[in-house]
Every structure is written in structure tokens, then in C-alpha cells.
């Protein structure tokens, strides 16, 4: 078999780019939060120091081999779901494996990581972690519904479940799906708020009450790997939403602009909002976003 | 002027003849009782005189009289008069009856006094390790327990405190100002003396 070395190169450098962009975004978020709170805030590259420091911790403990595997599951899910998303429009280098997967596969691939992570968290035996997992899974049931409604409405509107086809239909600026079906976009963004896990939907990791919840037993290299996969996963989700709604990007400049603007939506929402309780969050997702999603589908059908 | 206080004191005197009652000032009545009269007195004050509120319970160590004094401070909401009921008990293996049936919060006070003064309250089943963890010495709040001696032989005393033993002398030494006469007799003895 002949190996397309360009693709292999893309497979290698895409996670690295995603890591750097994601970590930088994390630092930016901390800085912007600080500025809004009238602080100076940490430098933009702060999260790099954090991750390097965590990797250079000299000792680390685990409560069993399932906890050892948890971060591995997480990073596997992050990088794999990144591979199946076309990072740049029609570029051989960055459309990694996006031709052999589709949206429904992606929805499930994204769950893979959190499920494996939940296994690892479960073995720590920390009650706080278990409470956090129970809250997180319950909230996932909440925001998956509007997410799926939005995706289904778009799938039946354009008769495809493949991201590349969705990119193909949004060739012009006016063809962006955010303009073609704005209600689906609103629904998707509301679900996106829950996905990113910033306030008001950060009850699973509530640091004050749960001792940082699920990750409270993870330190050193395990926490470092989790932070890495979290950065990559953030980038993957942003690129996914950009591809679906904002017409993807032709070059990295556009990509960075679009993803950053998209990222600011949950971040700014989070900074100025208090925290929902779990059941409040679930009911929120089951009220307006679900109604909007149904409206979006109805609009498409008729 | 003090008619309410007098009224209360007369009622108490009528009921408890042995009580030594003294009206300290307005809204302060001090009642000295025998220790076996404290439970009836508290119930009487609570139910009949309507002193529903237990402000405080405390304990005083009268080392010279070889007695411990228990002080209950009750309050009446209407007149906001406070009754200070005192009683003396034996100091060696002190015994008293638990009064938590009158005010449940007394249980916590009793646990503390059991730990700090070694008083044994019968009827309180939660007497035990309360604040001091694995304390194996005599109750620390008794006055014949030498706190500094215990601290010196238990904890490491970092050197360099000596010059701070008498703050005024130190200040004067550093800043040349001379110490007033009255301050001389308050000078604390040095650690190295004992």
C-alpha cells in the first residue's frame, strides 16, 4: 500500500497545532477574565508553564490501572475526534481523516473520552469525584438534546451527514449555515455553552464545593495529560462548530479569528453569570433550546 | 427604680430561702446557691419566672478555696433582666449533674468543662475527647496547671524571645526612654528563671 506522506505529516502536526492554539486560548481566557474582574491577570502563556510544571512533577500516584488509563482514554478521544474534523477547507494537509467519518460518528467519538475519563475518575474512590461525574453525566443528557436537534435539522436540510459536504455547501459568505438556518445555530450555541463547561454550567467541577470535583485525585502527569487533551478537545469542538455553522476556514488566520470569536461566547457568558444547579441546568436545556431546535426542524421540513 | 429586680429577688427568696441574692445593678441579679439547688432553681427560673434564655455557662477555678464555681447566666426576654446563678463544687474529682435536659446547648458547655476543668457531669454521655486531641495531662484550665512549664517541656521554644520578656524594658533599651516606676513591678519573669 502507498502511504500519503502529506497526510501522515498532517496527522502529526495537527494535534500539535491544536495543542498550542488550545493552550493559548486557555491563557487568553484567564487574562480576559482577569481584565473583566479589574485585575491584571496572568500572562497569555501562563497555561504553558502550568502544563510544563505538571509534566515535570517528580512523583505521582494512582488508585489502580483504570485511573492510569483514564487520561489515555481522554486524549485518545480528543485527538481522534480532531482527526475526523476538517481543520482547513479543502486542504490535503489538514483534512486528516475527515473523509472516513461523519457527524454521528463524531458525536459518539466525543462521548468516548468522557466515558473513559469517568471510568478513571470512578476508581479514585473519592466521593467528590463520583458526585461530579453524576452531575456531569446528568448535564450531558441535558445538552445533548438541543445539540442533536440542531445537527439533525442541518442534516435533513442539506441531505448529508458529512462535514466535508457541509463545508462544500457553504462556499460563499452568504451561504454560511449561520445565515441559512440561524435558529439551528442558536440552538447549537446554547448546547455549546453546556459542552464547554464554563459558568453557568460548571456545576460538575465546582471547585469550592467538590474540591475540583472529578479531577480531585489526579495530579502530576495524569493531570498534565488531561490538561493537554482538554486543550486539544476545546480546539476540536471550536473547529467543529466553525465548520458546521461558520463555513470553515481557508487559512489559519481566518480559522483563529472565527474560533476565537466563537470561543468568546461561552467565556463571556461564563464570566458574568452565576452557577446553575444541575437540575436547573438540565431544565434550562430542555426548555428553550429544545423548543428552538424543534422549531428549526419544523422550518426545514416545511 | 429597681422594682422588677426586687420583685424577682423576692420571689426567688420566697422559694429558695438559702439563696444569697444580690442585685448588682439594674437588670443584673446575682444568686448564690448550694450546688444541689441549682437544678430546681434553673427549672424554677425557666418555667415560673420565664427566664427562657440561657446566655452563658462558665466555670471559675477558686484555687485558694479549693473549689470550682459554676456560673449560669439566664435572661428574661420581656424585662431583659439577667440572673447570674452561681454555685461552688468540690475541686478534687469534681462532680455535677448534667443539666442538658433544660437547655440542650448545655451539653456542649459540659463537654468543654469536662475537658478543661475535669468536672464530671452525670447524665451527659458525650463527655470525652472534645477539643484537645490525645491530651494526657491534667485539665489545662485548672490554675495549678503550669501552662508555660508544660509548653516549655512539650514544645520547642525557639531562642530569641528573651529580650521580649518585658516589652517596656526592651523598648526603653532600644530607644533610650526610661521606664516609669509603676511599670517596673509588672515585669514578667524570664523563661530561664525556672
Amino acid at each position: 500500500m502507498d502511504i500519503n506522506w502529506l497526510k501522515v505529516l498532517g496527522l502529526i502536526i495537527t494535534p500539535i497545532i491544536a495543542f498550542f492554539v488550545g493552550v493559548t486560548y486557555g491563557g487568553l481566557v484567564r487574562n480576559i477574565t482577569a481584565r473583566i474582574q479589574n485585575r491584571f491577570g496572568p500572562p497569555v502563556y501562563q497555561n504553558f508553564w502550568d502544563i510544563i510544571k505538571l509534566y515535570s512533577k517528580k512523583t505521582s500516584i494512582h488508585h489502580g490501572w483504570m485511573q492510569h488509563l483514564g487520561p489515555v482514554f481522554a486524549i485518545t478521544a480528543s485527538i481522534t475526534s480532531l482527526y475526523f474534523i476538517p481543520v482547513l477547507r479543502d486542504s490535503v494537509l489538514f483534512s486528516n481523516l475527515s473523509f472516513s467519518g461523519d457527524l454521528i460518528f463524531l458525536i459518539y467519538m466525543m462521548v468516548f473520552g468522557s466515558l473513559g475519563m469517568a471510568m478513571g475518575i470512578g476508581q479514585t474512590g473519592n466521593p467528590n469525584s463520583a458526585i461530579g461525574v453524576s452531575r456531569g453525566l446528568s448535564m450531558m443528557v441535558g445538552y445533548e438534546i438541543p445539540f442533536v436537534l440542531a445537527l439533525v435539522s442541518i442534516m435533513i436540510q442539506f441531505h448529508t451527514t458529512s462535514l466535508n459536504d457541509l463545508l462544500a455547501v457553504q462556499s460563499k459568505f452568504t451561504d454560511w449555515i449561520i445565515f441559512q438556518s440561524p435558529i439551528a445555530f442558536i440552538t447549537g450555541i446554547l448546547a455549546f455553552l453546556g459542552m464547554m463547561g464554563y459558568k453557568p454550567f460548571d456545576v460538575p467541577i465546582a471547585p469550592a464545593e467538590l474540591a475540583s470535583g472529578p479531577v480531585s485525585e489526579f495530579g502530576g502527569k495524569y493531570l498534565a495529560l488531561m490538561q493537554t487533551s482538554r486543550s486539544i478537545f476545546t480546539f476540536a469542538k471550536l473547529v467543529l462548530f466553525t465548520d458546521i455553522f461558520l463555513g470553515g476556514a481557508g487559512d489559519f488566520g481566518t480559522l483563529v479569528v472565527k474560533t476565537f470569536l466563537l470561543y468568546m461566547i461561552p467565556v463571556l457568558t461564563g464570566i458574568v453569570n452565576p452557577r446553575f444547579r444541575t437540575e436547573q441546568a438540565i431544565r434550562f436545556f430542555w426548555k428553550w433550546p429544545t423548543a428552538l431546535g424543534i422549531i428549526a426542524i419544523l422550518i426545514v421540513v416545511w | 427604680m429597681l422594682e422588677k429586680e426586687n420583685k424577682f429577688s423576692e420571689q426567688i427568696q420566697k422559694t429558695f430561702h438559702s439563696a444569697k441574692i444580690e442585685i448588682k445593678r439594674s437588670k443584673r441579679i446575682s444568686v448564690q446557691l448550694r450546688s444541689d439547688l441549682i437544678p430546681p432553681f434553673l427549672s424554677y427560673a425557666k418555667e415560673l419566672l420565664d427566664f427562657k434564655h440561657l446566655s452563658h455557662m462558665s466555670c471559675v477555678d477558686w484555687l485558694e478555696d479549693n473549689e470550682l464555681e459554676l456560673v449560669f447566666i439566664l435572661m428574661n426576654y420581656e424585662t431583659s433582666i439577667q440572673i447570674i446563678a452561681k454555685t461552688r463544687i468540690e475541686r478534687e474529682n469534681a462532680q455535677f449533674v448534667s443539666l442538658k435536659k433544660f437547655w440542650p446547648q448545655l451539653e456542649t458547655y459540659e463537654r468543654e468543662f469536662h475537658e478543661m476543668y475535669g468536672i464530671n457531669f452525670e447524665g451527659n454521655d458525650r463527655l470525652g475527647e472534645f477539643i484537645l486531641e490525645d491530651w494526657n495531662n491534667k485539665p489545662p484550665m485548672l490554675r495549678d496547671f503550669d501552662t508555660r512549664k508544660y509548653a516549655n517541656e512539650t514544645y520547642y521554644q525557639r531562642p530569641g524571645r528573651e529580650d521580649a520578656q518585658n516589652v517596656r524594658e526592651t523598648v526603653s533599651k532600644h530607644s533610650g526612654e526610661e521606664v516609669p516606676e509603676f511599670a517596673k513591678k509588672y515585669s514578667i519573669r524570664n523563661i530561664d528563671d525556672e
Partner: protein
Amino acid sequence: MVTPNINEKDKLRIREIVENFARKHSLWVLAYGTGCGAIEIPPTMTSRYDAERFGIRGSATPRQADVLLITGYLSTKTLKRVIRTYEQMQAPKYVIGFGSCTINGGMYWDSYNTINALDRYLPVDVYINGCMPRPEAVIQGFIKLQNIIAEGKGNGAEKYQENLEWYRENQKKIIHNWQMPDYNW
């Protein structure tokens, strides 16, 4: 028990320099706030004296924390918890004694129930004097700790590991019924 290597020679390798630089710039603080000094932590962390400028961040659990900040006096009861918390932290880990009480007992120097010198029981990297030290002093102390780390001298964990018997002896002198698990990071 494997003892992480101690850099005996002053000349650090480039990797260690990078690592120490990262450690210096990201200090996750586990504040043990039973003493009166805990009131000084909120102003240090929040907008007035924004400690996050230096990468100093609060941490909720000892597994992720780098700095154990002891704010004020420690009674024999709380000392046990503090030792447990310190032993659950992951090396390299640093201790900051905060306030006079951790240095020499402060105003509780002759109390029957508070320890006087924290460094007899835990390897303290930096002491912050004062009763209480103001937030500027706290940040000053953190910067001192950062310099210590950058010079590669922030090896309190190794110190604790090596002189474990001495520390245990002191600790057991205070804590009579010693029912603690062995030191496992």
C-alpha cells in the same frame, strides 16, 4: 521507597532550568486557613493585589497543589491534618509559614496546645513574618519562594524524605496516638 534525585551540584542541567522556570511561574497554593491569617488570603488573590499575575493560583486538593500555605498558629489537632495534607502532595512541594505563630508561636508562644516552630515538623521554605503580614508581604514571600525555586534550592520534599526519622520523631512528640498511614507521597 524511591527518593527523587537531589541536585547536589550547583550547576543545573538545562532541562532542570526549564522545569524550575515553569515551577517558578505556576504555583498552585493550598491555603490551610485555620489561623487568623486566612483573612489575608482573599485580598491577596482578588483584584486589589492580584496574585495571579505571578501565576499563583488557588488549588482545591493537595494532589494538585505545589505550595502549602500555613496561615497562622497550628494546634496539635490541626498539625496532624497538616502533616497528612503535606504528605498527600506531589513532589516538588513547598511550604510557606505565614505569620509569627508559625515562626516562634507568636502570641501563643506559651500556650499549652499550639506548636511554636513549624520547621521542626515540616520542611518550611519561606517564612513570612508579621502578625498578620499584609498582602504585599505575602506576595513578597511568594516572590522569594520563586527565586528559591529558580535557583533549584526548592527541594523541601527531598529534605523531608531524607530526614524523615527526625521529622517523625518531632511529630510523634506532639501527636501521642499516632494512627497515620506511612509516608506515601
